[in-house]
C-alpha cells in the first residue's frame, strides 16, 4: 500500500490531538475487553456447555438431594447414554475467602461425561487406587500451590464426619486441565464412595445427575421423560440441558450482561463523537491540501478512500492498543480472587473487538470523507 506513508504522516500533524484520540479509543476498548471477560465468566460455560448433556436436580431446589438409586432408573430411559452424579461439598480451605468448588463424584463416570477435563492416565489410576484421593484443576492448584502427594484439609460446613473430625483430609492424586479455553480449571473433585461412607447423615443421597444423551436433538424430550419417571415421588426432579441450567444460574446474578452492554454502548457513543470530531477537524484543516491533491490528479474516490483509511487506521491503532492492554489485564487473572472461576478473553469477542474498531473507523470517517470527496478544486484552492 504505497499511500500508507501519506496516511501515516497525517497522524503526526497534531501529535497531541492524535494521542488524545488514540487514548480515548484505547480506554473504550480496554473496557470492552475486560467486560467481555466478565460477561463470559458470568455466563460461565454456557458457550462450552455440552449440547448433549442434561442436568437433573431436585424440583424444589439445587440444595435438595436426590436418592442415588435414581442412577439406575435414569440409565434405563430410552436415549440415555451415560449417567453420573455430583454432590456439592461447600467446604472451606483455611479461610472462607479461599473459594473453589469441591464436588464428590465417581471418577470414571465423571471423566467419561466431561471429556473436556483432561487427566493423565496414570493419575486416574492413582485416583482409582486412593480412596481419599482428590483431583484438582490447574488454576486452583497454581493458586494454592497444591502438588500431587499433598494432603489437603478441608473444613466441613454442610457435611460433618462420622468420626467427629471437623476437617476432611484429601490426598491430591492428580491435576486436570481443560482441553480448550473456557473450561473451569478451579474445581476440586474427590471420590463419592469415600464421602458417602464417612459423612454423618445423608447416606445414599447425591446433589444432581449429569446425563449424556445419544442424540442432542432429543435432549428436551428425554429431559421430560426423566421428570415423568419421578413425578409424584418424594423427590421429584427437574431435568434440563446443561446450557439452560447454566443460563438459569447466571440469571440469578442479575442481568449484569445487559447493564454492561448499556455501559459499553454509552462509552462507544462518546468515542464516536470524539473520534468523529477529530476526523471532521482534520479534513476542515486540510481543505487546501485536498484541493492540491485533486489538482495533481487524485480522483474523488481516491480522496474518499484516503480519509476513510486514515480514520480506520486511528481506530484500529487505538482499538489494538486497548484490546492488547485488556488481554494483559485479563490474563493477570480474575479480579474477584475466585468468584469467577472461568476468566479469560474469549477469541470470538476479540474478533468482535477488531470488527468494532473497524466500524468505528468507517463511521467516524464517513462524513469527513464524503465532504473531502465533494470538495471543488477551484473553491478549495481559493482558501489559500
Amino acid at each position: 500500500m504505497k499511500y500508507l506513508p501519506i496516511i501515516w504522516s497525517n497522524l503526526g500533524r497534531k501529535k497531541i490531538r492524535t494521542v488524545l484520540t488514540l487514548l480515548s479509543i484505547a480506554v473504550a476498548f480496554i473496557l470492552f475487553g475486560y467486560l467481555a471477560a466478565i460477561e463470559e465468566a458470568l455466563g460461565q460455560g454456557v458457550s462450552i456447555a455440552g449440547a448433549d448433556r442434561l442436568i437433573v436436580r431436585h424440583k424444589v431446589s439445587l440444595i435438595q438431594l436426590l436418592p442415588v438409586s435414581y442412577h439406575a432408573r435414569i440409565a434405563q430411559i430410552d436415549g440415555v447414554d451415560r449417567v453420573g452424579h455430583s454432590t456439592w461439598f461447600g467446604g472451606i480451605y483455611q479461610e472462607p475467602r479461599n473459594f473453589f468448588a469441591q464436588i464428590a463424584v465417581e471418577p470414571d463416570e465423571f471423566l467419561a461425561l466431561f471429556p473436556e477435563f483432561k487427566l493423565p492416565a496414570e493419575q486416574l489410576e492413582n485416583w482409582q487406587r486412593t480412596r481419599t484421593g482428590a483431583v484438582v484443576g490447574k488454576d486452583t492448584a497454581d493458586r494454592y500451590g497444591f502438588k500431587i502427594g499433598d494432603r489437603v484439609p478441608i473444613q466441613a460446613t454442610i457435611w460433618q464426619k462420622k468420626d467427629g473430625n471437623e476437617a476432611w483430609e484429601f490426598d491430591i492424586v492428580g491435576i486436570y486441565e481443560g482441553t480448550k479455553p473456557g473450561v473451569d480449571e478451579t474445581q476440586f473433585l474427590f471420590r463419592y464412595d469415600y464421602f458417602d461412607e464417612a459423612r454423618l447423615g445423608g447416606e445414599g443421597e447425591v446433589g444432581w445427575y449429569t446425563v449424556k444423551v445419544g442424540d442432542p436433538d432429543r435432549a428436551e424430550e428425554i429431559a421430560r421423560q426423566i421428570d415423568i419417571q419421578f413425578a409424584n415421588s418424594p423427590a421429584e426432579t427437574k431435568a434440563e440441558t446443561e446450557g439452560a441450567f447454566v443460563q438459569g444460574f447466571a440469571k440469578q446474578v442479575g442481568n449484569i450482561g445487559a447493564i454492561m452492554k448499556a455501559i459499553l454502548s454509552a462509552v462507544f457513543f462518546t468515542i464516536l463523537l470524539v473520534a468523529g470530531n477529530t476526523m471532521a477537524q482534520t479534513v476542515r484543516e486540510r481543505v487546501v491540501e485536498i484541493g492540491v491533491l485533486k489538482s495533481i490528479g487524485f480522483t474523488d474516490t481516491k480522496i474518499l478512500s484516503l480519509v476513510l483509511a486514515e480514520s480506520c487506521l486511528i481506530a484500529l491503532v487505538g482499538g489494538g492498543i486497548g484490546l492488547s492492554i485488556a488481554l494483559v489485564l485479563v490474563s493477570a487473572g480474575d479480579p474477584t480472587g475466585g468468584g469467577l472461576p472461568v476468566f479469560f478473553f474469549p477469541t470470538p469477542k476479540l474478533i468482535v473487538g477488531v470488527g468494532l474498531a473497524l466500524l468505528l473507523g468507517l463511521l467516524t470517517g464517513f462524513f469527513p470523507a464524503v465532504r473531502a470527496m465533494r470538495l471543488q478544486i477551484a473553491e478549495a484552492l481559493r482558501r489559500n
Partner: protein
Amino acid sequence: MSENNSGTVSLRAVCKNFRRGSEEIQVLHTLDFEVQAGEFVALMGPSGSGKSTLLNLIGGLDRPSSGTVEVSGEPIDRLSDSRLAGWRARHIGFVFQFYNLMPTLSADRNIDLPLLLTPLSKAQRREHVSTALSVVGMEHRAKHYPRQLSGGEQQRIGIARAIVTDPSLLLCDEPTGDLDRKSGDDILELLSALNREQGKTIIMVTHDPHAAAKASRVIYLNKGQLSTEPEE
C-alpha cells in the same frame, strides 16, 4: 509526448460565470485563446480579473459555463470528473503561489505524490524523483520538510512536483508572487530553462512586468476579455 500538438491550448467562446448569492457574475466573456506548443506565455491583469479562473479552466480544475477547452488536442470539457483527474495527472503540472507542499511529507515524498498515480515501480519512482530534484537543483534537500526550506527552495520542490510526470504543459499561478526579487529571478530562470531546454509549454500568471519580460508572449486579461495591450 509523441503527438505534435502536445502542449497546445485552444479555448473557443469560453464563458465562465459564478453565482454570488442570487446574482450571477460573469468573469470570462466569450473568450478565445490559443497557445502553441513550446510557448512561454505570461498572463497579466488586475486582481480579480479572472486570471486564476482562466488557468483553472485550462488545467481542468474547473469547467466553463459555455464554450470549449481543448488541450493537446483533447476536448477536456467533455471528460467525466474521474477521467479529467487522470488526464490532469498525465498532462498538466501546476505551480502555485504558496507552493502548497504537504507539510507532513519530506521534499522527495512531495515530489513522489503524482507518481503514486502511475503504474511505476518504487525503484522507477525513485529514479524519476531524483531526476526532478536534480533539474531544480535540490538534490541536497531531498529529505527536508517544507518548514525547513526557504520560500525559493519550496517553490523549486513545487516545480519538481509539477514536472516529475513529464507533462507537456505547466500552469503557474503567480509562482514568484510570494518570493523576494532574487529567489523570484531564480525561479523564473528555472521556468525559462524548462521551456527552452525541455520544450515545456508554460502559461504563467503574474503581476510583475519584470517576470512577464521572461516570457515569449505577454497577454492581458481585462473585463473578461484578452488583449495584447494592457488596458489604460
